[in-house]
């Protein structure tokens, strides 16, 4: 039975360190992880990886890391940082990956809350951040860095190079092999394997404690569902602090024994993707969106013949591509045309995108636009959606092959039970649920009900085929004064499906009508402006151009036309909008690190703009402080125009 074996590693491998050692025995010579360094892909086999992890674990032990301790891990996806997670787990400790792009001040909370004594970080940038806040985190005793560049003159005694820690650890492991074996033997599946902090859309982040058993259950379910085996290749480029990366690049990789590839740097992901040609791929919708925007921009600049071919065959793909992928009946002429298109357009396009070998691609984290979703499926990429939270190991619903509905997130995953509460909230139960929020019994009690269901906070419903559809965050769903249901996310997503609109924030709860803030997409609108010979100096300037307002107004009125078609939301058409003078940014606390809009904060920060929108003004002056990456502050000011948008009568008559 395949379920009892994970890629040749026996069932007794019920913790991640045991899985690692199991793979080192079963497929020691196969590549476990790769990283591109100095232009060349370097690989480590499972046997080598196991040796490194053992060395690192012993090195950590020598620094005083003990069972139950938390280890902060901060940096880009690098082999040694993944190994550090496993090394901590070998000692019965708990790795706490943190977002590497957070500014120093944001790190204080997690460092204090998790009671971090030892942190492993990537490079000088992260060391500097920790040094900046070290006084406020008295518990922090040791900082270990992976990349020594620029750190030669740092003389602090609590700074250690990972090379030295590793070397000392390896010697220790050779001399006292049984020390670590004993530590690994003490590990139990119900031990906490990792702590991931929630993004904190509201309030302070909470540390979600996930056990080995929960993650392995989610990994096993996912691997079985999509038949993932040891031959998969995955490119790991999403933040390690995010549950999705932990599931795909760590839990599933260690369960199934497939190869993880780390990109050379954050900027080279596209090139690395092409070189590796992953078979299994994960990206949030915005990545797929950026890729499509880039393709479209390049096609607009291409020659007439190429452009003609592209548009002709994309129309063919739109007509029948998704059906062919789903194995549905398609007429003979379209099949022939699609085969021709595959030769001329789709296959080269997949190749450019680095998706030639993809068997399964997932997206999650936010709603994906139907056009965007269909585009990828129509050119033959098996893109699917999944649904889950940090608290559920990102494992609740998965779209099965051949049963794709673009507006649902699929069927409950194997082992997961779903119930819809009376208020529409989605409740889930299964082996992948969190053990607790770290030192927050109050929050734990609030989120898990008496029957053991986790309350997701999302509102949704199961359709006739048992597929789950998500409407919005349950707490975000409000009411207009007229009584109509107001689901801001739903409206914002419709707006964001236009490539010209990057971010949107809709207001309407407790108001008479809906108004919105918008951010334009610099890439798409910039290119659009260039082709029209509109000169601009930067984001603020471009956003204020009347031509751009006209363009965006057309997008908004199209959204209104769509909203008007559905009686449920017809009353929530957008009456007025403005384009913000700056891009919403996690550094200014306007978005979470996972790029979700922090509605309440934005509402307070830009209260004057909201008043202007509802006060019927034609324009409003605003000056805003912005934070730069290095912590300096500056100001952006502009006179923002406020536009009225055409609204449409409801298409279906409401029962009066």
């Amino acid at each position: 039975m395949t379920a009892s074996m994970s890629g040749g590693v026996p069932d007794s491998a019920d913790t991640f360190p045991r899985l690692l050692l199991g793979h080192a025995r079963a497929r020691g010579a196969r590549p476990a992880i790769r990283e591109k360094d100095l232009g060349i892909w370097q690989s480590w086999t499972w046997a080598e990886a196991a040796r490194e992890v053992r060395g690192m674990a012993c090195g950590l032990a020598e620094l005083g890391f003990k069972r139950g301790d938390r280890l902060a891990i901060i940096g880009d996806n690098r082999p040694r940082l993944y190994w550090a997670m496993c090394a901590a787990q070998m000692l019965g400790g708990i790795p706490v990956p943190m977002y590497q792009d957070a500014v120093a001040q944001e790190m204080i909370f997690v460092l204090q809350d998790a009671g971090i004594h030892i942190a492993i970080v990537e490079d000088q940038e992260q060391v500097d951040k920790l040094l900046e806040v070290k006084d406020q985190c008295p518990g922090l005793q040791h900082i270990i860095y992976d990349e020594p560049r620029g750190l030669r003159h740092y003389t602090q005694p609590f700074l250690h190079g990972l090379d030295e820690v590793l070397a000392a650890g390896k010697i220790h492991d050779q001399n006292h092999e049984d020390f670590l074996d004993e530590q690994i033997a003490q590990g139990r599946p119900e031990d906490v394997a990792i702590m991931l902090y929630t993004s904190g859309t509201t309030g302070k982040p909470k540390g979600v404690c996930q056990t080995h058993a929960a993650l392995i259950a989610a990994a096993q379910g996912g691997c079985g569902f999509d038949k993932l085996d040891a031959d998969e290749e995955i490119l790991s480029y999403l933040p390690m602090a995010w549950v999705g990366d932990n599931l795909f690049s760590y839990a599933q990789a260690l369960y199934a024994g497939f190869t993880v590839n780390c990109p050379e740097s954050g900027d080279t992901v596209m090139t690395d993707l092409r070189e590796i040609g992953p078979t299994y791929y994960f990206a949030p919708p915005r990545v797929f969106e950026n890729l499509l925007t880039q393709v479209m921009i390049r096609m607009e600049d291409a020659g007439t013949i190429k452009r003609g071919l592209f548009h002709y065959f994309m129309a063919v793909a739109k007509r029948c591509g998704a059906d062919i992928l789903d194995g549905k009946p398609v007429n003979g002429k379209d099949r022939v045309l699609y085969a021709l298109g595959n030769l001329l357009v789709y296959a080269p396009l997949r190749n450019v995108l680095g998706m030639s070998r993809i068997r399964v691609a997932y997206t999650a984290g936010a709603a994906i636009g139907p056009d965007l979703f269909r585009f990828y499926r129509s050119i033959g990429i098996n893109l699917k959606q999944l649904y889950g939270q940090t608290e559920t190991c990102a494992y609740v619903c998965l779209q099965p092959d051949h049963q794709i509905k673009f507006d649902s997130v699929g069927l409950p995953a194997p082992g997961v039970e779903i119930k819809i509460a009376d208020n529409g909230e989605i409740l889930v139960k299964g082996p992948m649920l969190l053990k607790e929020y770290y030192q927050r019994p109050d929050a734990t009690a609030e989120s898990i009900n008496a029957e053991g269901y986790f309350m997701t906070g999302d509102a949704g419903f199961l359709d006739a085929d048992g597929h789950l559809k998500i409407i919005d965050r349950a707490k975000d769903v409000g009411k207009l004064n007229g009584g109509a249901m107001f689901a801001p996310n739903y409206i914002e997503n419709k707006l964001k499906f236009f490539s010209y609109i990057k971010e949107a924030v809709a207001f309407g709860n407790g108001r008479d009508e809906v108004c919105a803030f918008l951010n334009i997409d610099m890439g798409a609108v910039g290119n659009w402006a260039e082709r029209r010979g509109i000169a601009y100096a930067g984001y603020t300037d471009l956003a204020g151009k009347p031509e751009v307002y006209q363009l965006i107004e057309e997008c908004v009125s199209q959204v209104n036309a769509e909203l008007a078609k559905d009686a449920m939301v017809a009353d929530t058409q957008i009456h007025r909008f403005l384009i913000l003078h700056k891009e919403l940014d996690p550094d200014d606390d306007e978005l979470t690190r996972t790029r979700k809009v922090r509605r309440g904060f934005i509402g307070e920060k830009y209260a004057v703009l909201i008043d202007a929108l509802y006060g019927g003004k034609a324009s409003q002056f605003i000056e805003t402080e912005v934070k730069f990456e290095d912590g300096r502050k500056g100001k952006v000011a502009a006179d923002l125009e406020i536009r009225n948008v055409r609204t449409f009568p409801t298409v279906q008559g409401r029962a009066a």
Partner: protein
Amino acid sequence: MARQIGEVILDLKGISLSFGGVKALTDISFDVREHEVRAIIGPNGAGKSSMLNVINGVYHPQQGEIIFRGHHLRDMNTHAAAAAGIARTFQNIALFKGMSVLDNLMTGRNLKMKTNFLQQALWWGPARREELANRLKVEEVIDFLEIEHIRKTPVGRLPYGLQKRVELGRALAAEPAILLLDEPMAGMNVEEKQDMCRFILDVNDQFGTTIVLIEHDMGVVMDISDRVVVLDYGKKIGDGTPDEVRQNPEVIEAYLGTQH
């Protein structure tokens, strides 16, 4: 700072350079110590670029003496300067626009290649080993300057700030003892300038490279230089640490003007 400033490596004595009747440089003397960051500043037309051109042998001064590592020279010539480990970047970028970043950097290794044309054409034996070794060095420079993502991009398609960085990269690929930078930050925005400053200081710190740079941005110069020489109308009007130069009344006059 662990970096030790060493002995005088380059000493210029009484340099005068004129083009016909135009005196570009008049009796200028200053020295450069090993491992230091030495800046040359001055208003437009002060003779800063001419000075760099004298150092690496593009211009030949009519008077004066150059003492480089103890060797007394009448003037430099470009080949000898390059072979002696003096590399430079230019005020207006001088890269091969149609070639990739990688290939541009490889040209910086030209002097280190010992195999002959035929061996290289056949890419056989020593030529192959040599190319691999040189490629490794270039990759280290790419890593150092964080330009992995544009490795294969033709230079002409890059924004200005990145082209400047590539030019620095090509100079670094030659593993120079002295690096001459002609306005490395001209035309850059604040963020690009900060990056460039960091790279210059890192180069100086990690490889101990002696750096002579011309720069207009006074803030930058004062921040990163160990010593500054100030030129005005081809004459030296100041020389010393940034603080000394800042207090020098003649320098203040040249830069800010005086009330008459």
